[in-house]
């Protein structure tokens, strides 16, 4: 074997070993623990009223947060790429902040803004919308911590998108709205999907900010991660593991779906199907 082949082998072994040690092994152990007492026990654990409603609430809130980020993230990305305005560099660097600050601190920030003693909080309370300690607070916290995903995934694809394509659409008589939906969105779809799915998956597991921002009342404002924490604290590691695995399964399914949807054009299963459908009038 020549040295080049050896290098390739070593590199490959390192990459595989890294992923296996860091991700696969802990996953296997967790999965093993969850199913130690059989699938029936696992199902019993996750269908306990409090566990189930925590899981459902988490998925609902993550979907809302993801939708918020899909819409406003796309708009922000377009603005940040297409338009020049004073202070743009500053805005651009602010975007990454949610990744940089501890989520616990993010929670404190949100609580400080919307708390009853703050100006904004008092105003919001008067207008009879409650954000803090209620479900909107959870979605808000999730949207905050996952904000960079959509924007950062979209920016490079938007930059690569040649303006000629859109100009051609205009020349052919399409309005700005049609151009946006028929030209811009399809071209940046893989980037958008990646951002959206990563944001969704990340939101599912959020703990630090939610535990401060939500009321954490079981079956009302308690998300899965907070439920898991409670089960660990009350000496019920099995219940905690089962619900964690349930969240993991949802995440994994979402990521598999993303992988399917963003394959290169030839293999792009869902999208080609969806496009074929939309083309038939």
């Amino acid at each position, binding site marked *: 074997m020549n040295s080049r082949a050896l290098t390739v082998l070593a590199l490959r072994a390192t990459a595989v070993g890294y992923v296996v040690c860091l991700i696969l092994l802990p996953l296997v152990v967790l999965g093993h623990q969850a199913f130690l007492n059989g699938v029936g026990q696992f199902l019993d654990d996750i269908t306990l009223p409090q566990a189930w409603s925590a899981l459902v609430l988490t998925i609902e809130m993550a979907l809302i947060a993801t939708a918020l980020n899909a819409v406003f993230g796309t708009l922000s990305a377009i603005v940040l790429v297409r338009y020049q305005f004073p202070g743009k560099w500053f805005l651009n660097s602010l975007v990454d902040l949610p990744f940089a600050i501890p989520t616990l601190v993010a929670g404190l920030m949100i609580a400080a803004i919307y708390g009853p003693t703050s100006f904004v909080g008092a105003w919001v309370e008067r207008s009879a919308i409650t954000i803090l300690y209620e479900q909107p607070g959870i979605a808000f916290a999730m949207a905050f911590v996952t904000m960079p995903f959509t924007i950062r995934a979209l920016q490079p694809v938007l930059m690569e998108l040649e303006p000629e394509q859109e100009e051609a659409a205009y020349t052919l008589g399409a309005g700005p709205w049609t151009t946006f939906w028929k030209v811009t969105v399809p071209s940046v779809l893989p980037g958008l999907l990646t951002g959206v799915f990563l944001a969704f998956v990340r939101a599912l597991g959020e703990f630090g900010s939610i535990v401060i921002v939500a009321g954490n009342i079981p079956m009302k404002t308690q998300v899965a991660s907070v439920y898991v924490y*409670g089960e660990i604290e*009350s000496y019920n590691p099995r219940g905690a593991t089962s619900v964690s695995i349930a969240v993991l399964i949802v995440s994994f399914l979402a990521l598999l779906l993303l992988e399917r949807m963003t394959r290169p054009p030839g293999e792009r299963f869902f999208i080609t199907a969806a496009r074929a459908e939309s083309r038939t009038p």
Partner: protein
Amino acid sequence: MSTEAGAARRGLSMLLLVLLCMAAASRPGEAAEPRELILAIYSVPKEAYERSIIPSFQRYWRQRTGQEVRIRASYGASGAQARAIIGGFEADVAALSVEGDVEQIVKAAAISHDWRQTPHNGMVAASVVALGVRKGNPKGIKTWEDLARPGIQVLYPNPKTSGGAMWDIIAIYGAGLKQAERNASGKKVDQTAAAETAAGLLKRIQRNVKVMDKSGRESVTTFERGVGDVIVTYENELLPRIKSGRPYDIIVPAETVWIENPAAVIDRNADRHKVRDVAEAFVAFLHDKEAQTAFLNAGFRPIDQSQMTNARDRPAQLFTIHDLGGWDLVSAKLFGPKGLWTTAVEELARGK
């Protein structure tokens, strides 16, 4: 030790302390040096230990034996300390908030002696569940029933993560039983009917709960942030903060539960570190007048009420966990999968 450091700094220093302890414990060949004792203490009585109990024990040990004893204490949530010890944290003595956590360490065989064989059944400090209200008590809260009034916002932490919250809910449950007794006005009370009354009170109060934090301390922080009309927590959590000028009042309801906090030598570690004599002396020291006075000053009640002349008044209808049937029974009855609290939460969610 700084007195009023920010919560974050306190957390960081706690972590550092734990790391220090672990690092110190894993270094071999130090037995001949000045004696060293590692303590795992729950977070609430930190001030009492740091400011007076630990220094005075060191003085006491020097006078008795001529030896210097270095004490490294880590502070954290009671359950987390218990789990850390079970997982290998090298503490020689644990002072925790509930006996259940000590029992978990016993189950893991790190404690092998009968830790209740002390003057007060292994307990070193006491408190009661009390109510904190805004300054001047604008909502006129006096009894547990007031907490169930529509529009009153109540705070207590989650009993799954906070031993304090378990006590809070036990206090409400016990008060409900007393209520049933009172309603019967002297006649014999039917057990199931009394339990129903108590469950009703618990459910009506739970309906008014606005936020359930992870710990009692966090719950107080939320209250100080301006959320809620009343907070249910340990009396010893409220007293020092009121003393330091926080704008709220304390109300001790007539019916409330007597809380006792245990301390025990961790045999596995004390023997391995050859400090059993120091560890046992420390636990014994906690029962003595000096430590008891320190607890009293920190807002606790002395474990032996009769010993103290300056102790606070006893609530009129004080009950203990044993009056309600003991810790195991009560925690299953309230917090088990079909427990009263669990059911109340589930029924409230379904809008019943």
